[in-house]
């Protein structure tokens, strides 16, 4: 099934300059991956002759979109590859794994109330071996622990109808905040409340669809897109100024990919979605800046691939620049290697760790108090692969609010 409504002809602008291939994290560690140029724009010209020209090696693409960032011609290389995989590709043998890894909201719901047990079990050697052998999920991979209480239930219990502010925004918390890291959601509310903005949740939300797309569940991804779009429209109609997200990947999906998946939607609801740092820098610029006390820390900033692609690094950097006392160092841009669910698969584990190696090295060398990053899976990967503790920019900002 085609992911995007219109067929993408941007490959026609490819100058064959090799910039994408030279920046591809996968190609740099796997010479058997012919790289984004050959898999994307070159391959697409061939596939228009006949689908027979589809190469097996496309499956190694992580969808990190660094090729698109490198491209001087605005070719949607990563999209072309994802689309070709879905359109011409055949299934693979780890269907159950793909299903489990990609249906993050379902997995989260199933663990509700059983989080301590699930966390304990996913840590056991037996469970890891079973997952490795039967499912193809690498046994060396650490699973993110599930929270004992979901963010949504915390919100319902603690906050629903209790905030009284003239201005309100809606928060697309996403699966990770809901099931794994409610603290980030709580920090977000704290920061926004301090700026006299109330935070509402969407009436309902489903997984944004990033892992679904990555694993070829395009139909389900589109269904989720439609579902979430309805929720967004509803939120805007009932008085929210906009919808914010604290996940750079969810935000990218909602804002950039939904309109292309669903076609034009009346009123352009997707344009109302903002990644949190963009929203905050705009507020700061307009004078709505809370009082910030110094945070005397030395932090390294790691820019996640999808945030780079959306141009959002500017916002996060600008925001962090506002925190007094913060010693901020922009790490040399390098993919961490996890690429969402990619690094969980046993055939990709080594590739994933090899890709991240230069980043891990920088982090270990840098003697930072924290690593700051916007993306939940980058956090998982860096915490698993280095000794560093990883914090979201909003949580860092929340610290600056404290007495």
């Amino acid at each position: 099934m085609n992911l995007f409504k219109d067929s993408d002809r941007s490959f026609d602008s490819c100058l064959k300059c090799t910039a994408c291939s030279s920046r591809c994290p996968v190609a740099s560690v796997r010479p058997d991956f012919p790289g984004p140029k050959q898999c994307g724009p070159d391959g697409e010209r061939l596939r228009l002759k006949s689908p027979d020209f589809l190469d097996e090696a496309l499956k190694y693409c992580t969808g990190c979109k660094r090729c698109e960032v490198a491209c001087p011609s605005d070719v949607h290389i990563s999209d072309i590859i994802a689309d070709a995989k879905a359109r011409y590709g055949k299934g693979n043998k780890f269907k159950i794994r793909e299903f489990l890894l990609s249906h993050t909201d379902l997995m989260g719901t199933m663990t509700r109330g059983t989080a301590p047990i699930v966390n304990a079990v996913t840590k056991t050697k037996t469970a890891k071996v079973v997952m490795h052998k039967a499912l193809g999920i690498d046994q060396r991979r650490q699973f993110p622990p599930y929270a004992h209480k979901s963010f949504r239930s915390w919100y319902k219990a603690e906050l629903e109808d209790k905030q009284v502010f003239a201005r309100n925004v809606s928060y697309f918390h996403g699966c990770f905040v809901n099931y794994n890291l409610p603290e980030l959601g709580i920090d977000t509310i704290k920061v926004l409340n301090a700026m006299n903005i109330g935070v509402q949740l969407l009436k309902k939300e489903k997984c944004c669809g990033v892992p679904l797309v990555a694993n070829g569940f395009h139909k389900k991804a589109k269904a989720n897109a439609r579902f979430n779009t309805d929720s967004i429209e509803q939120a805007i109609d009932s008085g929210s100024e906009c919808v914010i997200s604290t996940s750079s990947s969810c935000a990218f999906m909602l804002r950039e990919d939904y309109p292309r998946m669903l076609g034009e939607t009346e009123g352009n609801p997707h344009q109302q979605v903002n990644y949190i740092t963009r929203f905050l820098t705009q507020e700061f610029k307009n004078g709505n800046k809370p009082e910030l006390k110094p945070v005397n820390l030395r932090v390294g900033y790691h820019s996640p691939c999808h945030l780079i692609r959306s141009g959002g690094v500017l916002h996060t950097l600008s925001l962090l620049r506002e925190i007094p006392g913060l010693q901020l160092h922009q790490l040399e841009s390098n993919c961490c290697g996890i690429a969402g669910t990619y690094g969980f698969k046993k055939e990709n584990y080594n590739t994933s760790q090899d890709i991240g190696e230069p980043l891990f090295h920088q982090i270990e060398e840098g003697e930072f108090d924290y690593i700051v990053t916007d993306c939940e899976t980058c956090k998982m990967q860096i915490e698993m692969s280095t000794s560093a503790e990883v914090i979201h920019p909003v949580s860092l900002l929340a610290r600056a609010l404290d007495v």
Partner: protein
Amino acid sequence: MKHDCLVIGGGLAGLTAGIRCAEAGLKVTVLSSGESALTFSSGAIDVLGMDTSGMPVRHPFQGIGRLIVEQPDHPYALLGGNSVYRALDWFQGQVAETGLKLVTAKILEENHWRLTAAGALRPAWLSQPTAGTLDWDFDEIRRVVFVNFTGFLDFMPELASAGLKTNKAFEHVCVSSLNITLPLENGSGATADTMRSTQLARAIGESDIELISSTLLEKVGDADLVAMPACLNVAGRNWLEELRRRTGLNIIEVATLPPSVHGIGLLRALRSRFAALGGFYVPAVPVKQGVVSNGRVESVQTPDDILEANHYILTTGSYFSKGMTSKQQGVSEPVFGLDMQASEEFCDSRFLAREGHGFNRTGVVFNKHLQPSINGQSIENLHVAGALLAGYDPIIEGSGGGVAISTAWKAAGEVIEKMGL
């Protein structure tokens, strides 16, 4: 947040301008969109390689003096030879701070030759340490060997041998080629024929170096110059130095077909220097439009934002990076709609014509402060630098690197002065 200075364009000129601003303590952000042309470059910096009659230039800064008399609209005319020298000297120092020690010819103020993968010689001012600097005279050279690793496609030793032999100075020099089949220790089982230079650089390991050095000693131990594809000095592993040490041979690295390990290395060094000085480098932010009123840039628009700064430096490059766009009707500067100067003859009938092509000389017009204009009115807080400028041919003159660096250095200098620093 208001930036002191926004640099639009993250290539050689943009990063140079960014580094100079950051060094002066300005809050500077470089907005980039698409990979810089440095990625495909030799990683060497040329200042002036050919004079107007097509003869190679031995003393580039003196050459600039002569050039700007003949071509008063040339960007170099704003600086003069001495300032260009200062800019290049400063640049070399900044790059050296990152550990990359670019080298000049052994003789003061002289160009050296850079050997190409087709066996041509092009004059250069700064070269990567492992690329070496060929002296202006070749007295000592009796035997040259181009060495490739079997299967690797982006270095052509047989072509390079033929190319070098066309040069009269090498008429009586023995030029040959040699292919060495490597096991590629870190290549995960892949072979060189599937690799680009960046991958080959990662794949080479100790056992490969051992094989290369023993083969060199056995087969070409008497060579005066051994040229190899540039993939032997990357990520802190300087295999080339190791090879020089083990064989005692004069081995140099020659830039391969794109991507170029040396070019990427230089780009990385510039980004890292900029970050170390506290500058922010933001990729994937194309600037779509600038808002200008009363001869000042008010703001610039990106797909997502309106950004404001006290000063702007435009280093968006030429056609490749869309600093200039061309349609069937003509060429324009897309962000601000700046005044352009087009060459009368847009292109020559031969691609590799000695005279070069008019499209290369086409660009944005500028005043002595490097301020561009719209409908004849100069823009006070906007400066332009690099490949976007009109009036020079970076390739035929062999001046691309020098113009990018020196004009960016000057543009940043103008901003710093205005900020009262």
